[in-house]
């Protein structure tokens, strides 16, 4: 399996002997085997030149950049080699025709809600009082089929998420005040972890989209005009409960993180560098977790599940098979 590389050091990343070399400010040199690189996440300050970009393009490696506050700032998206005009036309058509777009938007939301319910039910059987919330979210889901505009579908999605986040204080065995989702900047431990891992998941999905013929800017649930690769936002809805939310629950409930891992900024919290590395490692391991796929009947990783989801979407767009959002089946 190819690896994701996470670069924290400051220094220079360059092409050397047709592979990557990271030389850091303190003089250490590490060679990265290019054949083993899946994608790269840059958290430090790096100097980069075009010879490097040339090599990255040749190997079709996307590089995601983050700023000092671990906010996503952009991606080096190499020249698209997987292009399909036919699929692009289909992608646009499904966006333009409201019925088709609504159908996809609803599927994304229902997929997300299914997985959320799955999480809630899991904790419900473990003695947490979540019956009310399960009831309410199921009700919201049934309302979904009556919605006739994208904004109302988004509204339902928002309500489901809101209700879900309200239960987090019950699910997490720690005394943290978490009432609602706060962004820009996230105000407490849970909010800042959600922001961080949602954006990491979002980048993972961009990498996967790059490896398929899909165009990342045309989306169905989110408006495609938001200056982002909004298709990744759509897909991330389905995977957040499995990959991000469960990960955060286990971090807290297994005592793998506490206040001492954070440092206070003026009005937000930031993970300390050593803790950040440790937690990122856990997150990377989680993406490599494998399960036996029911219909494919072979072992796949969470990371590959995302790609399979995109293939399912492609099949839907070209009219081969209806899209059926991923549901946690175990």
């Amino acid at each position, binding site marked *: 399996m190819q*690896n994701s*590389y996470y670069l924290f050091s400051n220094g220079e990343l360059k092409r050397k002997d047709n592979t990557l070399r990271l030389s850091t400010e303190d003089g250490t040199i590490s060679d990265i085997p290019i054949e083993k690189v899946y994608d790269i996440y840059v958290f430090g300050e790096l100097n980069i030149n075009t010879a490097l970009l040339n090599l990255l393009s040749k190997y079709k490696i996307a590089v995601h950049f983050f700023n000092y506050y671990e906010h996503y700032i952009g991606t080096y998206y190499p020249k698209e080699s997987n292009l399909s005009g036919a699929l692009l036309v289909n992608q646009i058509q499904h966006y333009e025709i409201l019925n088709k777009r609504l159908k996809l938007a609803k599927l994304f939301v229902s997929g997300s809600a299914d997985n959320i319910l799955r999480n809630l039910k899991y904790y419900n059987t473990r003695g947490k009082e979540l019956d009310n919330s399960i009831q309410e979210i199921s009700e919201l889901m049934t309302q979904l089929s009556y919605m006739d505009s994208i904004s109302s579908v988004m509204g339902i999605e928002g309500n489901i998420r809101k209700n879900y986040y309200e239960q987090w204080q019950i699910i997490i065995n720690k005394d943290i005040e978490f009432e609602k989702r706060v962004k820009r900047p996230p105000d407490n431990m849970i909010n800042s972890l959600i922001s961080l891992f949602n954006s990491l998941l979002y980048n993972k999905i961009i990498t996967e989209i790059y490896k398929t013929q899909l165009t990342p800017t045309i989306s169905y649930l989110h408006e495609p005009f938001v200056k982002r690769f909004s298709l990744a936002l759509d897909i991330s809805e389905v995977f957040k409960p499995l990959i991000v939310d469960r990960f955060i629950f286990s971090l807290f409930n297994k005592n793998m993180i506490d206040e001492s891992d954070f440092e206070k900024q003026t009005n937000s919290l930031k993970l300390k560098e050593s803790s950040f590395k440790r937690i*990122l490692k856990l997150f990377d391991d989680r993406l490599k977790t494998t399960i036996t796929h029911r219909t494919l009947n072979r072992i796949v990783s969470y990371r590959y599940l995302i790609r399979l989801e995109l293939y399912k979407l492609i099949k839907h767009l070209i009219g081969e098979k209806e899209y059926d959002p991923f549901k946690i089946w175990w």
Partner: protein
Amino acid sequence: MYIILVYDINTEQKSNVANRVFKICKKYLVHIQNSVFEGELNESQFINLKNEIKKYLRKDLDSCIVFYSRNEKWLNKEFITEPKDDTSCFL
């Protein structure tokens, strides 16, 4: 499969074989010691690596050995001196 590749290149005759082989191995595996590489490769990467270095290795002069196991799990690694993790993805 998890691979440990070691080579011995004859340098009595002037040639750039050692350099070429070194550079190719670096693309696939992590350089852990002089003429020793280690890393996880899939079947096709392993075949590509072999094909690439075969072009340069001289059958009568050089030697290149690959040890492999199905998974890193089946391999114990012990540092007798200071441990160093070169194979990390967090740099």
